[in-house]
């Protein structure tokens, strides 16, 4: 005999404003099996939870329905409350009358009616729920961080500090990422390298951290607590443990045509190189596309000059297979390709540069040694035009619909630094809006405009072209309501940022969901911002959305703390909503086995007693630790032997019936 309790939440006025709570409660009371129904302002509050717990005890409820917000929000809360009151947590169903009802329907009559239907469906389902017991699975006490930028480094350091081993997999030859390329950081203008390199060194020296650079994750299987990853460590043709990073090879290498990636291709580097002076590991790598020895078999100069005998032309890609309890995505970003915006002549005029290129030009370790020079002729520019929102907030398809968040601030930084160092240089900034939320951010921007006399022009640039050895910019000043033409020496494009292209591949591998812009989706935008909906996958840095360094670092720490929280556990309770095969109905046809993405189904032949008929049959068996509960197997099973706990055929059909009443 069912004894169902229904609890209707007002969610303050969120639900109560468009749903007549009293009617839902009254309607609930007459549902078959319902013995108790009550409403409360905030069911999720302690007082609300106590109402539930008390009712479970007092009425001996066998199942409860909470009509409230999305189950993605508070299902866990109410399950826990039920469990504390002695009711199996899987005897709880949520009727989502907020996100799916009160928030979208303005008409109270309509909202109330729908809320009643949703409640009815949940009651119909819960009467068919069965108590489920979660299984247990192991937790491998090791974490994997994909990406070795500031986000990945910070996450790894925090996890390592808590005593857990961490592997950082970085696709480039060194860790450091985008931050290593920056000259100064806003709004304090401190040197980027100066604050990043100690962290890089710390990552290298921390005994809990293993750096796997020049490597990519190839395959991931398993699930939270025990992922298995296969990592390809690309051949760098230099023995990592032998190379001393002396750099002699670099100076002797005769092939010097490779574009220097670290300097955004503004200058060249040898075929054997260390990406930058503070690279970690400070080990050379051979660019196999440029190396004469690897391409023709001749040369071998670097091998000759290397006193440490670190060169190995025969090196092959290696594979590392490791188990991890948790995986952090810190795959970062890249600027979008500015050449799509032909009006800015980026691909035709050398003096049109992106902000990241300017960053390298301004950097002491950059191609110009930190002196501001025009890329075309190496002359000192007298005027620079900055164009903001290049590809940001652009829904035309050429750019990105979102705000890249960091451009306003770095443009202010660049403008300020240039005016500070070279007061003779005129600086104009074309902007649409200047967005500066953040501690000391607006003050920073105003300083650029007021103290450094940067010319902020509200408007956009329509065209940039080259004329008589200088650039011409035609833009509009919307405040003055005039089209203006500026002669200038350099144009700097604040290009939008986008997730690193590897993010999509990695996300698919991890079955982490991804949004239309390829940013990884968080489990909840507010309450679980550093977790992916896929258990055991965490997000750090720009892979989740545009953010600046302080935000990245704090998110990295947050992700680390979530990982630590997970790794601290000895066992994980597994999702009990898994597939289950009724051996009396099973035909043993193997269809389910073939569609299972987790290899969770196997077969066994044994004696079965089918109501007195004893037969030896081949039947399916589900490994509950491997099953993730997708239900693909349930539909290919014609006899209905395969069903999903918590979402059984009958439960779903009961919901359908209740809805279509």
């Amino acid at each position: 005999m069912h004894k169902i309790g229904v609890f209707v939440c007002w969610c303050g006025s969120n639900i109560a404003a468009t749903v007549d709570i009293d009617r839902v409660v009254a309607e609930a009371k007459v549902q078959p099996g319902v013995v108790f129904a009550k409403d409360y302002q905030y069911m999720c509050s302690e007082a609300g939870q106590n109402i539930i717990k008390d009712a479970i005890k007092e009425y001996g409820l066998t199942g409860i329905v909470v009509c409230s917000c999305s189950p993605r929000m508070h299902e866990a809360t109410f399950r826990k409350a039920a469990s504390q009151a002695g009711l199996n947590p899987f005897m709880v169903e949520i009727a989502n009358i907020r996100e799916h009802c009160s928030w979208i329907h303005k008409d109270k009559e309509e909202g109330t009616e729908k809320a009643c239907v949703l409640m009815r469906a949940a009651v119909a389902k819960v009467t068919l729920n069965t108590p489920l017991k979660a299984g247990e699975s192991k937790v491998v006490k090791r974490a994997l961080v994909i990406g070795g930028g500031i986000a990945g480094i910070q996450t790894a350091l925090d996890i390592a500090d808590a005593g857990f081993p961490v592997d950082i997999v970085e696709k480039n030859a060194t860790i450091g990422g985008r931050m290593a390329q920056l000259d100064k950081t806003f709004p304090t203008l401190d040197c980027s390298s100066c604050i990043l390199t100690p962290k890089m060194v710390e990552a290298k020296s921390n005994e809990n951290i293993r750096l796997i650079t020049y490597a990519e994750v190839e395959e991931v299987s398993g699930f939270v607590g025990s992922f298995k990853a296969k990592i390809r460590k690309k051949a760098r043709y230099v023995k990592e443990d032998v190379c001393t990073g002396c750099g002699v090879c670099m100076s002797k290498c005769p092939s010097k045509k490779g574009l220097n990636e670290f300097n955004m291709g503004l200058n060249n580097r040898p075929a054997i190189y260390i990406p930058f002076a503070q690279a970690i590991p400070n080990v050379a790598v051979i660019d196999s596309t440029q190396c004469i020895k690897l391409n023709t078999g001749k040369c071998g100069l670097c091998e000759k000059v290397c006193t440490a005998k670190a060169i190995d032309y025969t090196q092959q890609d290696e594979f590392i297979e490791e188990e991890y309890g948790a995986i952090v995505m810190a795959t970062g970003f890249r600027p979008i390709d500015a050449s799509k915006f032909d009006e800015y002549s980026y691909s035709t005029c050398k003096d049109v540069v992106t902000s990241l290129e300017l960053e390298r030009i301004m950097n002491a370790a950059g191609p110009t040694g930190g002196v501001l020079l025009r890329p075309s002729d190496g002359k000192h520019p007298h005027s620079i035009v900055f164009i903001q929102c290049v590809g940001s907030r652009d829904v035309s398809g050429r750019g990105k619909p979102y705000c890249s968040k960091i451009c306003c601030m770095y443009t202010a930084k660049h403008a300020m630094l240039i005016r500070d160092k070279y007061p003779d240089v005129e600086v104009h900034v074309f902007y649409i809006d200047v967005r500066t939320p953040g501690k000391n951010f607006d003050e920073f921007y105003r300083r650029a405009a007021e103290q450094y006399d940067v010319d902020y022009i509200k408007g956009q640039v329509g065209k940039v072209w080259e004329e008589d050895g200088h650039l011409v910019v035609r833009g509009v000043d919307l405040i003055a309501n005039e089209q203006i033409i500026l002669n200038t020496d350099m144009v700097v494009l604040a290009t939008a940022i986008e997730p690193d292209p590897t993010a999509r591949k990695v996300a698919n591998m991890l079955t982490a969901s991804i949004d239309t812009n390829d940013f990884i989706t968080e489990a909840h935008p507010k309450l679980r911002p550093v977790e992916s909906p896929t258990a055991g996958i965490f997000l750090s840095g720009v892979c989740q959305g545009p953010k600046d360094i302080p935000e990245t670092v704090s998110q990295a720490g947050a992700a680390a703390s979530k990982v630590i929280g997970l790794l601290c556990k000895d066992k994980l309770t597994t999702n009990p909503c898994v597939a289950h095969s009724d051996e009396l109905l099973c035909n043993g046809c193997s269809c389910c086995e073939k569609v299972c993405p987790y290899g969770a189904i196997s077969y066994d032949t044994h004696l079965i007693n089918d109501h007195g008929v004893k037969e030896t049959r081949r039947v399916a068996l589900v490994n509950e630790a491997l099953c993730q509960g997708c239900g693909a197997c349930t539909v290919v099973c014609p006899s209905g032997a395969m069903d999903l706990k918590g979402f059984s055929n009958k439960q779903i059909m009961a919901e359908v019936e209740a809805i279509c009443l």
Partner: protein
Amino acid sequence: MHQTEKETAELIKQISGSDVKKCMKCGKCSATCPAYGEMKFHPHQFVTMVAHGKVDELLRDGTVTRCLSCFACVERCPRGVEPANVVAAIRVLAEREQGGSNFVPDEVPALIAADNEIPQQALVSAFRRYRK
């Protein structure tokens, strides 16, 4: 048919199919416009004026006839607002309006004087379009 200014603006939106609310006032259209200097009002202003329902002056003023229909603004607009389509819509309205001609025979001699090479075809088609 007599219309209020707001109704005319609605009509322009309808004809152009342009969603003027999408404009984020960046000015890219005006920055791009090669006929900017010829105009009293500029592309970003057309859009704003239509959005605000203040279009009478726009219709009276000859600005829209200055538009070259080069569609640079449509091409460049990051929000897909399509200012040139707004212009086209205003032109259509002007054409529809009897007597609202923007091209009178008196202007012809001056035009020919200014540019001897002006094709006759251009003048004839201009009459067909703008004179009713």
